[in-house]
């Protein structure tokens, strides 16, 4: 391919609230620009992990290059960068956006602006992108494009009168989107002869090529043989291959110069060396400054992962190592639990990230897992002046050694229709939220702003939010910082024995309530045994709640004759099977799901 003219390049991404049709529009753009015929195209090329397709979310950033012949007769190169669509991956989103010059904002013609729409638009504006709105799903009977256009103008404050009204599903008016990309999204700038300065917006591990760096060249040019350096991690490598992104394939080329989007390989062994947001430069002719905005991603949520079958411990370790090759945000270290045996304490970006890893371990590596309560990182300031970052409640020092503790807070924005404002405010109140303010988007909808402790939102906040707003509330948050807090470790004793895997850190004010609910929940989860089982919650050795699982006194099949035998056998088999999925703690058998399900304590 001839050296591309910068003016003929458009680098853009699509931002949207979940389910507003981002991936479908991406598919249409790829299809319409002729990269793939619709027959060749598997639905939603850009979401290429099975899990992504099933959940309808994007986990890893993806990019694709297509060529569009515009009405002015010129051919334009489109680099479409698909960004992850979830708050857990906010940082990755912001780096993907930084690799673009403009963003298409997709808004559902029926639902209008949601919390993630706002969060993503602000991220795009923060990165100086030109935002081009598109109204999608106009084929829906409930579509109300005029209202949504007004909402975009009023709430976000961007021009939306000429926003294309499209149906990405049917392809209606998608051509207009393509034309507007040419007209409204600015061409990139940058000097191809300047020192190399390229932004890493993702990297993946490939067993043949090593790490493949996805990058946007801001300044300069990179070629095969260039000795490159990652400015933050200081890793160096010689470029083996460069190229751009076909649909689901890598297409090598001679060089990438300022304004272009593509990939670089260079026998790099680990994605830890090529962190998202880092700047790639030329060792021999380095740029003066790295690109702004880099930060090392931190795990926000921790939990213990244990193999259901203790013998699978080495398999779990291998699987985690393999996943980590491709996921610099995943952290793990070995730990041991009295109740669960050998396992790992793992760190994640958020609960979705946790769930994804858990699901991939189970599906792709065929592991049966037991997961303990997810928790956040607490800062424990000891009387001797030391500070420890606590990721496992079992490691909490003796209360006498603790000066004070801190917990992480987030700033949250919740979009809700006015009828549910009351119940959502109640929810935030219960979760120790600090009310910051409320803005009306329009008469019927408001944006609530709260500071919330992260540990109050990681398990079931989203579910609670949805159930208390009949699905209408949407939610977004970002990490704010640490604040001092009155925290305590809540221990659970089953048949008088402390079960380490059930301990968690809780705010003192909610310890009693959580302890009580926890005991109630466990009472339902633990099957009856031949003896009575006390379930107790304790803080600092003091029992604050108790329930009892009564002894099993009667469990009989009244009838069993000739025609019943097959059915009765199944019943007994089920009973027997149930026992296999239990963990033995002392004399008591605890179902594995009890370790996780006790976290869903919101009973409204």
């Amino acid at each position: 391919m001839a050296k591309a003219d910068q003016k003929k390049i458009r680098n853009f991404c699509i931002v949207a609230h979940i389910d507003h049709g981002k991936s479908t529009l991406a598919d249409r753009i790829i299809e319409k620009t002729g990269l793939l015929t619709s027959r060749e195209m598997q639905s939603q090329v850009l979401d290429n992990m099975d899990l992504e397709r099933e959940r309808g979310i994007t986990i890893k950033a993806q990019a694709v290059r297509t060529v569009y012949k515009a009405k002015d007769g010129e051919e334009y190169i489109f680099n479409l960068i698909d960004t992850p669509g979830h708050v857990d991956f906010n940082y990755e989103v912001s780096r993907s956006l930084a690799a673009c010059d403009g963003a298409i904002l997709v808004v559902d013609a029926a639902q209008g602006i949601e919390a993630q729409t706002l969060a993503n638009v602000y991220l795009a504006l923060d990165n100086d992108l030109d935002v081009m709105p598109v109204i999608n799903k106009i084929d829906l009977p409930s579509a109300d494009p005029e209202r949504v256009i007004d909402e975009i103008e009023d709430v976000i404050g961007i021009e939306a009168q000429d926003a294309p009204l499209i149906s990405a599903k049917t392809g209606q008016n998608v051509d207009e989107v393509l034309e507007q990309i040419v007209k409204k999204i600015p061409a990139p700038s940058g000097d191809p002869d300047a020192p190399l300065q390229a932004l890493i917006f993702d990297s993946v591990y490939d067993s043949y090529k090593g790490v493949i760096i996805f990058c946007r060249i801001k300044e300069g040019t990179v070629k095969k043989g260039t000795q490159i350096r990652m400015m933050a991690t200081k890793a160096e490598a010689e470029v083996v291959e460069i190229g751009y992104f076909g649909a689901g394939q890598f297409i090598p080329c001679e060089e990438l110069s300022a304004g272009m989007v593509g990939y670089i390989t260079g026998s790099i062994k680990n994605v830890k060396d090529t962190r998202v947001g880092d700047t790639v430069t030329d060792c021999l002719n380095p740029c003066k400054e790295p690109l702004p905005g880099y930060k090392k991603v931190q795990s926000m949520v921790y939990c213990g992962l244990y193999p259901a079958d203790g013998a699978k411990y080495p398999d779990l370790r291998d699987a985690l190592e393999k996943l980590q090759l491709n996921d610099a945000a995943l952290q793990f270290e070995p730990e041991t639990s009295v109740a669960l045996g050998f396992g790992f304490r793992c760190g994640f970006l958020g609960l979705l990230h946790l769930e994804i890893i858990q699901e991939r371990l189970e599906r792709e590596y065929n592991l049966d897992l037991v997961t303990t309560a997810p928790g956040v990182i607490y800062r424990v300031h000891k009387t001797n002046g030391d500070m420890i970052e606590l990721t496992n409640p079992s490691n909490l020092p003796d209360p006498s050694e603790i000066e004070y503790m801190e917990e992480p807070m987030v700033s949250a924005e919740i979009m809700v229709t006015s009828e549910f404002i009351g119940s959502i405010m109640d929810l935030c109140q219960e979760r120790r939220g600090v009310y910051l303010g409320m803005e009306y988007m329009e008469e019927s909808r408001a944006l609530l702003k709260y500071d919330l402790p992260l540990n109050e939102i990681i398990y079931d906040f989203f579910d609670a939010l949805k159930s208390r707003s009949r699905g209408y509330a949407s939610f977004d948050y970002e990490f704010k910082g640490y604040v001092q807090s009155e925290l305590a470790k809540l221990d659970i004793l089953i048949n008088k024995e402390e079960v380490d895997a059930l301990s968690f850190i809780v705010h003192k004010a909610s310890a009693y309530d959580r302890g009580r609910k926890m005991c109630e929940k466990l009472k339902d989860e633990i099957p009856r045994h031949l003896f009575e089982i006390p379930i107790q919650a304790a803080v600092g050795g003091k029992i604050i709640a108790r329930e009892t699982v009564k002894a099993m006194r009667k469990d009989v099949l009244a009838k069993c004759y000739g025609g019943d035998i097959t059915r009765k056998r199944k019943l007994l088999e089920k009973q027997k099977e149930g026992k296999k999925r239990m963990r033995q703690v002392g004399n008591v058998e605890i179902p594995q799901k009890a370790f996780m399900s006790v976290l869903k304590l919101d009973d409204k």
Partner: protein
Amino acid sequence: MRTEKQTLELYIHIPFCVRKCAYCDFLSAPASRKTQEAYVECLLKEIRRSAELSGTYEVSTVFFGGGTPSILPEKQIGRILEQLRAQFSFRESAEITLEANPGTVDKDKLRAYRDAGVNRLSFGLQSAEDAELRLLSRIHTWRQFLVSYTLAREAGFHNINIDLMSALPGQTEESYQKTLERVLHLEPEHISAYSLIIEEGTPFYERYEGHPELLPSEEEERRMYVLTKEILESGGYRRYEISNYAKKDRECRHNLGYWERTDYKGYGLGAASLLHNIRFTNQTDLSEYLHGNFAGSEEKLTDQAVREEYFFLGLRKTEGIDPGIYREYYRELLKKLKIQKLLDEKDGKIYLTEKGIDLSNYVLAQFLD
């Protein structure tokens, strides 16, 4: 010299009833006289098709179950038994049972059953309290039952079973005790006393699943079970299986066969058979059955399944079983269950203790691999 033939039990399923009871999940429903007649013709055809069994087997028992077999005109029961006798050799003392709903019999019918060779009747009474009978949507009252029972005695039935149910919604220990005493007074040869099981797909399931507060508590249920044993034993009955009581030598031989894994052949809709460790289940779709498609599924039991059945069926009998060749296999389990006082052993036979009976599912499940 003639070689000894193997014992075979016969089960005849009559899937018809006057009205479906609210707790019943058996394969049974009301049907027109015409359907019933067509069904009997199919039954006879199915019996004829199994002629080869008579070469190796000799019949020890016949059991007409349902549904409500007594819904059929007496003539039809006679025709079925005639066909069976024409085809099989019967043991001299063969036990021939017919289940009867107290609301469906009269003097002539009972007489005719007796003449056809039926020598044991099983009455589904369930309760002696009319309020409880209504709740179960039974079609008869206590009084109607008394009439039927007396007629059966007069017709010459000397071996009668009465089915009872405990743990019914609204039932108290007092009302249950009254039922037991009333029944005891009649001196039937055999009493089956079952705890109500709420089965999926029944109106009771809709009404009571998830509402344990509407049913007697587990503790009350247990006390009713203990009460049954105390009252019936004091009346001269012996509990020989978890829910079955009999006067001396009046155990139901047919049912004992199921727990001892005697071979059996079932005829009719959905009927099960066990022949040389293959379990057959007939067609369960009535219209298919009426088109002559009798066969359903079959399963060859593995050695493991045979071993497991030997225990989970055999241990239902109060006298227990000889673990025989499996003793070594279950050594650890037997030891554990004895320590837990769920199982005991006497004269080489292992049997469930009272506690073991109460928790029999828990115990029996452990004999499965």
